[in-house]
């Protein structure tokens, strides 16, 4: 049973059928309309509407002062956003690709995430950093990184990652309204992979909450973003072998929805974590740790990780070998079930 579809059906507002990138555009538009202090900054987000068209039409509608084409300068974008945020604005900064967030790492690490702490709450940095992430679209090098773990290990910033158009818009609005900085990861591979009904106007998806996408009894698959379709495919394939998978979409990577995870793993006794980032230092380890803390006595087999390998994301000719596949998930499911 698809739990999510059911919930969606309850939605009564008028809706539009949108792809994820359109839903993001719609979320940005909604907040630009709602709140005068919202301001978008980034490279090529204005006239060009963003290299993925996520900001298409927004500069036309809201003007160059609110949808700002900046110089090619990530540290400058994030650093000036700190000043804007402290002084009454809600900057939504786009990093053109997540692999280009690294020049801004210092600003995010030493200021964005720490200013509230430093000033005991006197100043805060309510800003959103949007970052398209992940491999699988045949992009040049550095365009395909999945760097969430570099930010979940950074106290003071939240990290979210939607897997559907509906969640993308709802989480983005929640992120913009959040009193603290939020890194908003956008799975490029999912930008146009799926269309769904997305409510018009403003609504939010709660930060810190994941969702059970599918009920199951034998094993819990934990994933997010572009790995959700991979998890679903694998789950479908093992159905034939009479293995029943529960699928969790985390949506928020920090703070984790611990109850959701514990409840599911305590039921199934087995977990497979699927993510694109490298195994070593990846968020998968945090999840294992979490499960170790909450559900040690429930485990029937070692937790499995299906992740990107401990190698740099390769040039695109090999990217399909880097990325987790349903086949690899399948293998792990069988390993867990037949432990």
């Amino acid at each position, binding site marked *: 049973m698809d739990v999510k579809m059911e919930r969606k059906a309850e939605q009564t507002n008028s809706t539009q059928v949108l792809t994820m990138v359109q839903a993001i555009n719609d979320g940005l538009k909604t907040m630009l309309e709602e709140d005068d202090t919202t301001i978008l900054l980034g490279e090529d987000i204005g006239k060009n509407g963003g290299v993925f068209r996520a900001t298409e039409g927004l500069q036309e509608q809201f003007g160059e002062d609110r949808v700002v084409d900046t*110089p090619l300068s990530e540290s400058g974008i994030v650093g000036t956003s700190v000043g804007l945020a402290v002084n009454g604005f809600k900057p939504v900064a786009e990093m053109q690709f997540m692999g280009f967030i690294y020049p801004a790492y210092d600003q995010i690490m030493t200021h964005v995430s720490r200013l509230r702490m430093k000033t*005991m709450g006197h100043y805060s940095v309510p800003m959103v950093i949007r970052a398209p992430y992940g491999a699988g679209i045949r992009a040049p090098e550095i365009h395909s990184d999945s760097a969430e773990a570099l930010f979940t290990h950074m106290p003071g910033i*939240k990290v979210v990652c939607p897997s559907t158009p509906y969640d993308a818009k709802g989480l983005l609005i929640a992120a913009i309204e959040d009193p603290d900085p939020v890194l908003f990861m956008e799975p490029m591979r999912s930008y146009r992979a799926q269309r769904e009904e997305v409510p018009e106007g403003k609504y939010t998806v709660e930060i810190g909450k994941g969702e059970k996408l599918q009920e199951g009894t034998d094993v819990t698959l934990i994933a997010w973003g572009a790995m959700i379709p991979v998890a679903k495919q694998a789950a479908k394939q093992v159905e034939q072998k009479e293995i029943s998978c529960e699928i969790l979409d985390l949506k928020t990577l920090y703070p984790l929805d611990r109850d959701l995870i514990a409840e599911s793993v305590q039921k199934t006794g087995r977990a497979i974590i699927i993510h694109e980032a490298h195994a070593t230092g990846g968020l998968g380890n945090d999840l294992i740790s979490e499960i170790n803390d909450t559900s040690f006595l429930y485990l029937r087999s070692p937790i499995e990780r299906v992740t990107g390998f401990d190698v740099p994301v390769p040039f695109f000719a090999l990217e399909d070998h880097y990325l987790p596949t349903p086949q690899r998930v399948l293998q792990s499911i069988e390993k867990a079930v037949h432990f």
Partner: protein
Amino acid sequence: MEEQFPIQKVMDDQGNITDEKTLQQIDEELVKKAYYHMKRIRLFDRKAISLQRQGRIGTYPPFEGQEASQVGSVLALGTDDWVFPTYRDHGATLTFGADMVRTFLYWNGRAEGCVPPEGKNIFPAAVPIATQIPHAVGTAWAEKRKGTQNVTLCYFGDGATSEGDFHEGLNFASVFQTPTIFFNQNNRYAISVPIEKQMHSKTIAQKGLAYDLPSVRIDGNDIFSVYFETKKAVERARNGGGPTLIEAVTWRTGAHTTADDPTKYRPEEQGKDVVNPLDRLEHFMKNYSYWYDAWIDQIEHELTEEVEAAVEAMEHFPQPDPSDLFDHVFANPPEQLSEQKQSYLELLGRG
């Protein structure tokens, strides 16, 4: 470039002002204010060093020698403007209205030291070099967008100009014509690295040329030059004229910090010829009959008392609370963080 950017000064080392027009701009109020604040922060600075030596505060970076730069520049601001200090600019923030007790607390490792008085736009001292520069551009940009006339004054050292954030910040300021005054205190050293090794160019002012910024190089130990040049930049910024880069050439008399030993890297003779900015102002005051013994004694007494009282208050400030470790990370702490707090406080026996 040294020809293109000569060091501007209005007052010589003996406290003489040759330009009649400038002299007329200097009134008693300004002179007294300048002396008062320079004296005040000098006392603060020396007290801080002595506290550190006694182990009553942590490592401390003295600013002695740079008082004219800090006081002269910050006095050119209005109350609603913004100040972005580095770790060495507490002389400026104190003059702008930062709380002295909290300033001492800062150097005692207390976050309380970063909290400015309500209504005072003072950022926490930047520790990662040059990172405050884009922030200062951002706040100024916000003021511009709100349509106010407020400006932002951003401090940074000679060493800071080598960092990428200096460049990116100045470029943003230039592109968006933000009302930001980039106030460089060129004290000719970044810890042990002399400016000749920091850069091959002869001035910092010339770095403004890259961004088509109005730039000026001034004698940072001449309080009047600092004040009037900053004032000009502030006026320009308020009136929509955009950012300015000011290079104030100065000299730190002492060590980089109390943990540093400048004799390891500074030639003994270097800096010997620099007339201390407070002495220079004293010469001026005596030359031009602003030196009132009674007033001098009075403020010296008052300020000494103020500093002593601040030390006293700092030392009697409530002890740091471990809860603060957890309470200011997010507006609404996530459950897992609250649990960490809870279990730690329990361990401390105060659950």
